[in-house]
């Protein structure tokens, strides 16, 4: 009985194992390997060991790009947190059917390609776009606002694209909070803000950190958003890596930056675990 069960288990997990080995582990190992090679003038690689790609990352130009990327990602994460919490908490007072409907609506954007949705924002945000025309038409402003081709455009795009990744884990954490605790807090005379900081927040911090990871990490790499809504004027780590593999034809350096990014990500996950987060929460929602 037990044996049969384990055969079945293997049978069903083997495709996943093969998939992970072939399509995730092998390419990663390849990236790791080439990050120690030199690049030749034709965009190929010279197979001699070097650490120069990793040293190059610490060039001031690239350090600035790293800092800028982290800054943009931090702002995005913070805004997402500020939107996700009130949304999740207000959902709790809704009827279950409404709640389910609203959560489904959060996921609706996933049905369309994010690139197309980002292009959609151009129509809204550009100089003669819908928002500016509406504001000028109603006499609220006189000259168009610069809503895109700058940092504002990038942040709007990042928050818009990544918000569901914050809402879902935060909501799942908030929905597990025992309502009697909240009622007790109010009964004891705590204000709404106090109830949030003393009851909700400590009980849902792992959800918040989980969501933050899921927002922060892609925000460093989503080069298409900086390209489209930032007007290509601002480079984040994602753009830098893309450039190395395309225009600069310097795969080893691109690989080294990728590895560096992976190490940064792993460090963040480690912090998450140390704060008491569960790895399972990162995978499924």
């Amino acid at each position, binding site marked *: 009985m037990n044996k049969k069960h384990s055969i079945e288990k293997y049978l069903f997990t083997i495709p996943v194992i093969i*998939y992970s080995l072939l399509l995730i582990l092998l390419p990663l190992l390849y990236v790791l390997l080439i990050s120690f090679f030199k690049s030749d003038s034709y965009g190929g690689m010279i197979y001699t060991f070097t650490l120069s790609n990793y040293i190059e990352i610490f060039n001031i130009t*690239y350090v600035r790009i790293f800092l800028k990327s982290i800054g943009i990602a931090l702002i995005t994460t913070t805004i997402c947190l500020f939107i996700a919490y009130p949304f999740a908490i207000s959902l709790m007072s809704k009827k279950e059917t409404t709640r389910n409907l609203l959560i489904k609506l959060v996921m609706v954007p996933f049905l369309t390609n994010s690139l197309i949705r980002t292009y959609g924002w151009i129509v809204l945000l550009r100089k003669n776009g819908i928002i500016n025309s509406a504001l000028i038409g109603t006499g609220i402003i006189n000259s168009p606002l610069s809503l895109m081709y700058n940092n504002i455009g990038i942040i709007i795009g990042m928050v818009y694209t990544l918000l569901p990744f914050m809402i879902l884990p935060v909501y799942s954490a908030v929905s597990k909070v025992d309502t009697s605790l909240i009622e007790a807090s109010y009964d004891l005379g705590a204000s709404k803000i106090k109830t949030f900081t003393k009851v909700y927040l400590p009980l849902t911090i792992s959800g918040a950190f989980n969501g933050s990871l899921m927002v922060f990490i892609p925000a460093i790499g989503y080069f298409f958003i900086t390209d489209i809504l930032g007007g290509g004027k601002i480079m984040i780590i994602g753009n830098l890596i893309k450039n190395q593999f395309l225009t600069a034809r310097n795969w080893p350096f691109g690989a080294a930056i990728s590895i560096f990014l992976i190490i940064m990500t792993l460090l963040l996950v480690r912090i998450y675990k140390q704060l008491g987060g569960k790895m399972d929460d990162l995978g499924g929602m």
Partner: protein
Amino acid sequence: MKKARIFLLVICGLLMTGCTSNKDSQIVNVLNWSSYIPDEVIKDFEKETGIKVNYGTYSSNEELLAKVSSSKEGTYDVVFPSDYMVELMIGKNMLEEMDISQLVNYENIDEVFLNQSYDENNKYSLPFLLATSVIAYNSENIPKITDYKDLLNPAYKNDIVLLDDERITIGAFLQALRYDINDYDDSHLEEAYNFYNQMKDNVKAFDSDSPKSFLITNETNIGILWNAEAILAQDHNSKIKIVYPKSGYALSMDNYVIVKGANHIENAYKFIDYLLRDDVCQKIIDDYPYISTNKNTSNYSEEELKNILSNGSYIKNVSENIKKFDRLWAKMK
């Protein structure tokens, strides 16, 4: 997991198309720039010759190189690399020699476009279309512009779109300073960086995908962009003027080449020959108004073409010095 499944399906689909295409001999495998040949032309070719065209696209020379060099020999028959990429592919021994006796319509090629520096005797390549970078501006809002230095005017704040291409854009700054577009001297590049810093506040965006949209929607009044894009913008708004900058501009010639080890060489020649036909060429430049290399469909006089070619410069492969351009590009952004 759903993603993984879809991905596997796609992979299977790709593998399957790979299998069928090898069996059938009445086909030609073409890899071309995205939006470069109207679909109609491909369909007409298929109807006329009965040869099926497997048409793939790429959006940069580097992507083309990656695709060709990472696939099995014989995967692609005809591809369309630009000048420096032709040179690079010749260097890597990736191209078949071009046998012009197979091409009835060879005579249609204007001689001015032959024997260019990247392939002296056209041993491997024949010219297809010529693109040049130009300055385009909306003359309704902007006084006359003749050269890059006019773009430094502080009145044009947030009013310029540049190509999101490090070689062309940094190259334009170099040309503005009267250096060669392929110059990689450190101090000259530093000067180019300073030139950009003077222009920085005027630059609204870098865009290579559709810079014409910026001019058409009045998002910016000025752009440095490819000639065909500028002409299309002009079709929308006749107030848009096109200028070949006095201190030079980039030339980019896209060429027909046949990939080494191609499985359908005969069909490849038929395909190239078809595109060399006058009426076909006319259809292509009607949709994508680059400079035609066909002397019978030329929209420029011989004199103009000579001028365009002699005042512009080809982007050349600068080998490992590309890293300098890349570092500067990262510094600019």
